């Protein structure tokens, strides 16, 4: 089962620079929540605080709370490693491990937890994950080829397969489809739809059609001016957001009259 995330009064810094200010958002379990907004408004930044990836950047830190099923991820006693195990992530640019084969890439996360996996279990898992990412047919004959030998789109799908193969509770996706063609995009969207039965999904997207298609809730981030911190402008269920937004900025953005 997926888990819910509640973000309370979150301020996000890069060193001294306050990148995103006072975010409050409730992300429902087993739903898809989309983050939209103009470039530089901090969508990626907020997303990366949900699995404590943000703090890997030197000097970066977070104020406020991020509650995963009520438990604050930023509590002293929480191990970021286990947070990241429960909250998977797919990045904007495809990043397969260059020295690993396609198969090993998919298994990379699982191998960390469990050194000894029987070959047949591994085979099953690889097939499941690759089918889910709509990549199976393209690569099934060359599972032992290096993952970086694939085209950009294929690489990104491989990364999605790798992320879902560890079966996280929450999956964060930062523009996972921006490098994909429509067919692959559709397949990934279907996969997201399917995954939400089991997991909570948060996705950053520039494609509003995509948000409208797949998200249950949509968060609109905005930026008052360049150099100012970004903030969460408006959060609503997707139908309201796209059909009847109660926020002027959001309406202007969605209708393309922005800026």
């Amino acid at each position: 089962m997926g888990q819910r995330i509640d973000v309370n009064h979150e301020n996000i810094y890069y060193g001294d620079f306050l990148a995103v200010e006072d975010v409050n958002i409730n992300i429902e379990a087993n739903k898809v929540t989309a983050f939209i907004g103009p470039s530089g408004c901090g969508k990626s930044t907020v997303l990366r605080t949900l699995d404590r990836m943000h703090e890997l950047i030197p000097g970066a830190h977070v104020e406020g709370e991020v509650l995963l099923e009520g438990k604050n991820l930023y509590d002293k006693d929480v191990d970021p490693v286990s947070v990241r195990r429960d909250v998977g992530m797919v990045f904007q640019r495809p990043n397969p491990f260059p020295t690993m084969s396609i198969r090993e890439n998919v298994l990379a996360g699982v191998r960390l937890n469990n050194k000894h996996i029987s070959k047949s279990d591994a085979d099953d898992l690889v097939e499941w994950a690759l089918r889910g990412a709509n990549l199976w047919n393209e690569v099934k004959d060359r599972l032992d080829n290096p993952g970086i030998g694939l085209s950009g789109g294929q690489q990104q799908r491989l990364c999605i397969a790798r992320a879902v193969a560890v079966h996280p509770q929450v999956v964060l996706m930062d523009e996972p489809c921006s490098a994909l063609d429509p067919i692959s995009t559709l397949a990934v969207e279907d996969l997201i739809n399917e995954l939400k039965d089991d997991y909570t999904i948060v996705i950053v997207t520039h494609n509003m059609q995509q948000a409208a298609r797949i998200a249950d809730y949509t968060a609109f981030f905005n930026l008052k001016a360049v150099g100012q911190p970004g903030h969460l402008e408006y959060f609503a269920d997707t139908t309201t957001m796209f059909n009847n937004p109660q926020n002027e900025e959001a309406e202007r953005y969605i209708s393309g009259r922005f800026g």
Partner: protein
Amino acid sequence: MSSQDKTALAPSGGKTADKVFRGVAYACGILILVVLAAVFLFLFFRAWPLIGGDQKANSDTISSFTGGKVNTFWGYVLPLLFGTVLISVLALIIAFFISIGIALFISHYAPKKVATGLSYVIDLLAAIPSVIYGLWGGLILVPAIYPFWNWVANHLGWFPLFAGPAANPQRTVATVAVVLAVMVLPIITSMSRDIFLQTPTLQQEAAYGLGATKWEMIKLAVIPFGRSGIVSASMLALGRALGETMAVLMILSPSVTGYSIKILQASQSNAIASNIAAQYPEANDLGVSVLIGTGLILFLITFIVNFVARKITEKAGA
């Protein structure tokens, strides 16, 4: 911005510069071949009397180097070669893991400010001349390390490498290997640190995103990325160890001939480079030929070592 001097597909300026630059680059590439050929040919030419000269005079010369124990070239050079390789390999083994550890410490563990300072210290240490290591090794380390090696000889003496009794003073292969390890350590460290620091953030985040611990992230992203760099750093290090002259010369008590792996005993082995330095000043013409012959062997052995290492790198890179 308004001046559009466009004739479609007009030949571009700078074409000559392009050609010249390319020519110079090629010439410099080929120069490497020429230089190396020159070195090889010269060594071969100077060593020629060993093959084409008066064999009686050759064996007399070699006898004079070895106090009459050996009078053939191979009998002279093979033990030297054995000693050279033994010392260098031991040094590399000691240095390798420590260096990788330090490199990782700097690149991924130490806070940024500390890391910058440490990097600087390591870079500086890479520059400490071998003659200073020779001074330090011969005057400070040799007496200081004796109790340790003596302990090793007493407790691990059953292992042939550590067969006792430990020589006192410890002017032995073991001590020299430690000094050479210290000398090559900064080379491996600074090169692998540079590579580790360049591991793409994307790769590292991919690993973290899967729930990897720091060490697992290093295994998944950093080490594979740096592997060929590590190998080539080790190669450079081995190259330096094989050719190291002054430190060995100033520390080791050399043997005249013979193969031995008793690294805690004195006068068991000698290295080619330090042997050349020791014998060259007093050698006559034919003696220089013999020494250059041994230099040629050293040259060939570094060739082989680097060649093999290179093949390993290629395989790892594939």
